[in-house]
């Protein structure tokens, strides 16, 4: 790390102030949700205002610290509300999506990386172009086909099929990039030792690609876990909601239950935020690399 940047000789104090302002902006909404979650009430405001509030009273409403701490929102969101069921739906759908998507993508990425065959370039281009279809554009035909024709509305299977296939292009590109870096000599050596093509793939290539497969799987899982609009459109029955649809359900309509929402949002976010912090460096390189190669 070099120590001679453009900002090298600036005084540090104003920089700290500037950065701190943005840190507050970045963190405030999160703290606000945390304090609503622990406030024990369903209201949006953290503290109740007295009838004639002074500036100090008003300032107090902004501080993300509830008047009294309570676990009750967490307790009732998992007991009184069907939130655990929604979490379970999300977990099932995301896990199944990951399994289906990554399995399909692995073999396909291997073919694109190792073999030259008619249709290879067309296939790769098609994968890229399909990334350009906005999700909502696919939604109308998919809705008609899956829900109105095949009757897969409000079913986890329908959602898994949609998530897995829309996720495949990303997985294929990620994995292909990694397979490309595995030296061919390893496979050739195995073939000379008498390994069948299937053995080469399963015993040599896949074990070597474990880290890339893990990262791809985690991304696929996160995408399924965080997806909102497809789930909101496909899942009509309340018992089949996924967590995002359920969270939205808490704060839409006439009775806005912000306490449940906040508690639920924290439960849903903790795993993905942690995963994200762990994965972000892969994400940055993957996304921009794809963009440059176009």
């Amino acid at each position, binding site marked *: 790390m*070099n120590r001679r940047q453009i*900002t090298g000789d600036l005084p540090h104090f104003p920089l700290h102030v500037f950065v701190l302002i943005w840190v507050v902006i970045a963190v405030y909404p999160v703290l606000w949700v945390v304090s609503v979650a622990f406030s024990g009430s369903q209201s949006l405001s953290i503290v109740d205002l007295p009838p004639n509030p002074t500036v100090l009273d008003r300032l107090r409403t902004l501080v993300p610290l509830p008047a009294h701490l309570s676990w009750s929102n967490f307790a009732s969101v998992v007991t009184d509300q069907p939130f655990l069921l929604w979490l379970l739906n999300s977990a099932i759908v995301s896990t199944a999506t990951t399994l289906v998507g990554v399995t399909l993508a692995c073999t*396909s990425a291997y073919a694109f990386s190792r073999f030259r065959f008619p249709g290879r370039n067309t296939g790769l281009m098609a994968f890229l172009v399909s990334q350009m279809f906005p999700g909502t*554009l696919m939604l109308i035909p998919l809705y008609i086909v899956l829900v109105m024709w095949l009757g897969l509305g409000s079913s986890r299977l329908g959602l898994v099929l949609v998530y897995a296939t829309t996720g495949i292009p990303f997985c294929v590109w990620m994995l292909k990039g990694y397979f490309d870096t595995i030296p061919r000599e390893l496979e050739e050596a195995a073939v000379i030792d008498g390994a069948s093509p299937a053995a080469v793939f399963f015993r040599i290539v896949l074990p070597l690609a474990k880290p890339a497969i893990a990262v791809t799987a985690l991304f696929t899982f996160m995408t399924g876990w965080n997806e909102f609009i497809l789930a909101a459109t496909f899942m009509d029955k309340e018992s089949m909601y996924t967590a995002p649809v359920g969270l939205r359900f808490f704060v839409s309509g006439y009775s806005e239950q912000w306490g449940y929402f906040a508690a639920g949002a924290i439960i849903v976010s903790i795993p993905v935020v942690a995963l994200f912090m762990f994965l972000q460096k892969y994400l940055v390189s993957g996304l921009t690399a794809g963009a440059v190669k176009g």
Partner: protein
Amino acid sequence: MSLTLTTIRGAVALVIGLIAGLGLFMGLSHEAQESEYAARLDRLAIIRSRMIADLVVRAGGFGEASRAAVARAATADPGVVSVRVVRLGGAVLEASTVAADSGDRAAPRRLERSEKWIYDLGQMLQAARATNRDEETTRKAEIVVVRDADSGGVLAVAAPIEVDGSVEGLALVQTADEPPPVATPLLPAAIVCCAAVLLFLLTSGIARNSRWGTALLAALALVAALGAAAWFTTRTISEARRQTTRAVVDLTARQATVARAALPEDERAYDLASWDVDSFGRPRGLVQTDGSATAAAVALGAVEARQWVLRRALAIAVAALSLLLGVALGLATRVTATLRKYRQAYTYAAPALIAMLVLVFIPFLYGIALSFTDANIYNSNEPIGDIWVGLRNFRDILTDLTVSRETPAGRVFNYQNFYWTLGFTIVWTVTNVAIGVTVGLALALALNTAGLRFRPIYRVLLITPWAVPNYITALIWRGMFHKQFGVVNQVLLMIGGDSISWFEHPLTSFTAIVSTNGWLSFPFMMVISLGALQSIPGELYEAARVDGASRWQQFTSITLPSLKPALVPAVIVSVIWTFNMFNIPYLVSAGEPAHATEILITQAYKVAFEQYRYGYAAAYSTIIFVILLAYGTWQNRVSRAVEAV
């Protein structure tokens, strides 16, 4: 006549094409007959139930007189198994000819628990009538046909009994009709098949062994065979329709006689047109008031049958012909050879490719096809050809230029106009990307300062907005912009301002969604810029300083150019992300006020899933795709240029 290899291949291709084409025609004919028979049974049962409903009203409403009349009518018609008349007020079985309903179970009596379904049916009809009247639409069926799951025949028909314009009860009629057996013309198909092959073999000499000539001859033979099949299918379907027409006219006449015999004291004529109705109670226009058939309606039925077959025949012909040409020209052989040669590669690639084909590319093409139709929630089961409207959707979207108009009360904007939404989307994208780049870059520069304390902590905290799932972000910010309890308004009140209804004016609504999106998008730019800044060699700055360059000069001539290779692709992807950022406008402002803050994709979504105009929404989406494709092509060129630098 000489049987060369080319001729044999042509013959094989022809046979394959014939099997596929004629098979499809047979399936088509089968399905058409089945649905025609089903529709006929429904129609006959509806006529009977309407007659009973009429009879009850004529006999002075519910009571002894109508009970006797209904019983007489039911016994006079051998096609009726049973009739039940139910009054909804009090849930009373007013009349019944069901065998079990005699003795102490005889009507009139209250409905029993096991008969609750009849009462529910009545409630449904009542609600449907009310809804349709309120909405002035025909959305809910006002006459319900209960089908028998086993035989496919009609189990019962429930028709509302209306007194003074409100649904007071229902007539439930069970009929004995069975659908006639569906004919499958195997023999004619076989004859046509043989004739076509024979025709081809006899004429194959003309082609003189040329591959294209043979294929052309085979295609002609196939077209001739398909033409014959189309003619035959049209005849079958027209005949089925003619039978329906005759059955309907006959039955109405018979029912009129039955009704008169059942209620001899009433000498007013019956309106027979009001018996032959669709499930919304609208007359079908075949039977006239006096019971005679409308000639125009009969003729129209035949024309419709012909068009119906013709449209499907074209699709079948295209499929069969391409199959034939594929085989005859050796394409199929070549494809098979390629598949075999690269078997391993295709085995690996196939699962994902097939999944993509079935669930991404075919739906995509289907979506494009939908954009040329007026598909909506009611007709999306119908084949594309039947709801085709050509370019109408595109014309409606693109030629509507009235973004705003003058009214006496001032300027009124039509926020649903495509060009407003397009303009809004562009402003939205540009603003957001500009905010992201500016804030992200400024923070990256600050964080990149040598020896700045707490750097890793700052970095983690500043990435938080990116890590939070964006639908949660959206809902949080919607809460923070809440008029009464939202934090933003609390701040305004604290510094002495007034609270604002953020989502009631386009400009404040725009501010709200841009703030939300800005909040969640700056970390991406910050991370990208930080990475790029760290790779700039410090010697460059040192050298510039030695040369006496000012800080601004250093920034514009060293920092910015070095950032370019990283920032340009980042800007390109974030433009696409922002353009497609569905969750923020949808969840934060929900397009309020009056769809003013809708971006293109949320607007398309709302047309599809709130107005249920799938065709129009598909056209809208296709336009969005074209815009994205144009942008993608352009960005490709730009990023190539950047790479070359």
